[in-house]
């Protein structure tokens, strides 16, 4: 359910960015941020998610990206699936909880996604245009920053929700 909500928010954010100007579309990928965030947060607080669930989430997000961007279907689907699986596997082996670490994971995930995309385009879509170096760097940086921002926002919401629940419990008295 949270993934569907995240997907809706990401698509909305992406549509807004595209409407703001054509320069935002190639450097802004909120669907990747969603996928990496889910992969990083898997396993925390006892969530029953694993690399395969993350890979499915990446798969769906990638296909949505493909459908909305009008590119070749399966291009982002393949790349995002691979990224989600890899990040989830890394998360299982390492403790990634600090904002800086999460940002670094976002940067690396975005770079990995771009590499996969470039490789697939080179193999399957020779006429496809690769992003320029500048836009690639910007895209990687934006992904890292957005991931940190989403993480901090989610943490804040979690803390506030926990406080609200505590207050609610303290008001209840059992005589």
């Amino acid at each position, binding site marked *: 359910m949270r993934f569907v909500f995240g997907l*809706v928010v990401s*698509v*909305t954010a992406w*549509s*807004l960015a595209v*409407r703001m100007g054509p320069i935002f579309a190639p450097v802004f990928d909120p669907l990747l941020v969603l996928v990496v965030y889910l992969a990083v947060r898997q396993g925390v607080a006892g969530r029953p998610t*694993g*690399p*395969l669930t993350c*890979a*499915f989430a990446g*798969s769906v997000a*990638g*296909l*949505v990206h*493909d*459908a*909305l961007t009008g590119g*070749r*279907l*399966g*291009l982002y*689907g*393949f790349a995002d*699936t*691979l990224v989600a*699986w890899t990040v989830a596997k890394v998360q299982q082996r390492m403790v990634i909880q600090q904002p800086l670490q999460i940002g670094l994971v976002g940067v690396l995930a975005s770079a990995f996604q771009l590499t996969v995309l470039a490789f*697939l385009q080179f193999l*399957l879509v020779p006429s496809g245009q690769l992003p320029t170096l500048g836009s690639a760097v910007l895209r990687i940086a934006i992904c890292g920053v957005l991931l940190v921002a989403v993480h901090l926002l989610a943490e804040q919401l979690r803390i506030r929700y926990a406080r609200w629940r505590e207050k609610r419990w303290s008001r209840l008295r059992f005589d």
Partner: protein
Amino acid sequence: MGERIQTGFFVLLLLAHLALLSQGSSAKGSRFEGYLLAVFGPLVGAVDSTVDRTSRAASDLRFASDLRRDNAALREEVEVLRREVVRLQGVEEELERLSRLAGYSRLATGDNFVADVVYVDPDSWLRTLVLHTGPERAETNQPVVVDRGLVGRILVSSGSYAKVLLLTDRSAAASAMIQRTRRKGIVRGAGDHLRLENIPALSDVRVGDLVVTAGLDGVFPRGLPIGRVTSVQSSQFDDAPADSLFRRITVAPAADLGLLDQVYVLTRSPLPEEVKQDLATDRLEQETEDPS
């Protein structure tokens, strides 16, 4: 679920994507893409329409602030004009009183009605217009004006339509005077501008002088703005003959004749019919006496 099974599923997922990729734009791929679009397309459409509505609302707000500013400016202008009307009413009353004392009878200023410009004669390039006068009936030779000045006169009238001869037409002319000096001459059409003729070479004329109707031609009432002097050539220096007694003066029309949407037709008959008939009879007699 064991790690091997998970890895197997993952590989299957990747292979499925590769299969989709290899299909390219085939029917199956397109159908699948169509399903995805059917699910997420409305969301993107909703975002688009929301952004559109928001930007439209923002522009409406900007427009509203513009309207408020314009409204304030127009209110100020109305105040100024009201004061001017009160002042002019005083002047009018004073003039009436002085005219009565001096036994002077002024010409009636007459009424006017609005007419729409419905056709511009392309052959004569803005030198004749066709007006739709509605229920009002225009008559030949009635002056046609706009707020900035004189446009021309009614040439032909038929039902609720009337043809206007613009002042810039080469066959059009009007008695005129320079407002500053009251020097009188004749304004003639010259295509896109006007020429002021019969102004003596020694008279005082300057560029920028306002030229108004003199009211001596029996068609146009006195005081309608015609245009402003744009060039004055004295006969001694220009290509006019050296013995010319008159200046060559060019006048730019006060009314922008290329932007006419609506005009006013002055309904006052400048000359009584009896006087017109007398003049016509005199002219006829003159022509029969001197056939050359």
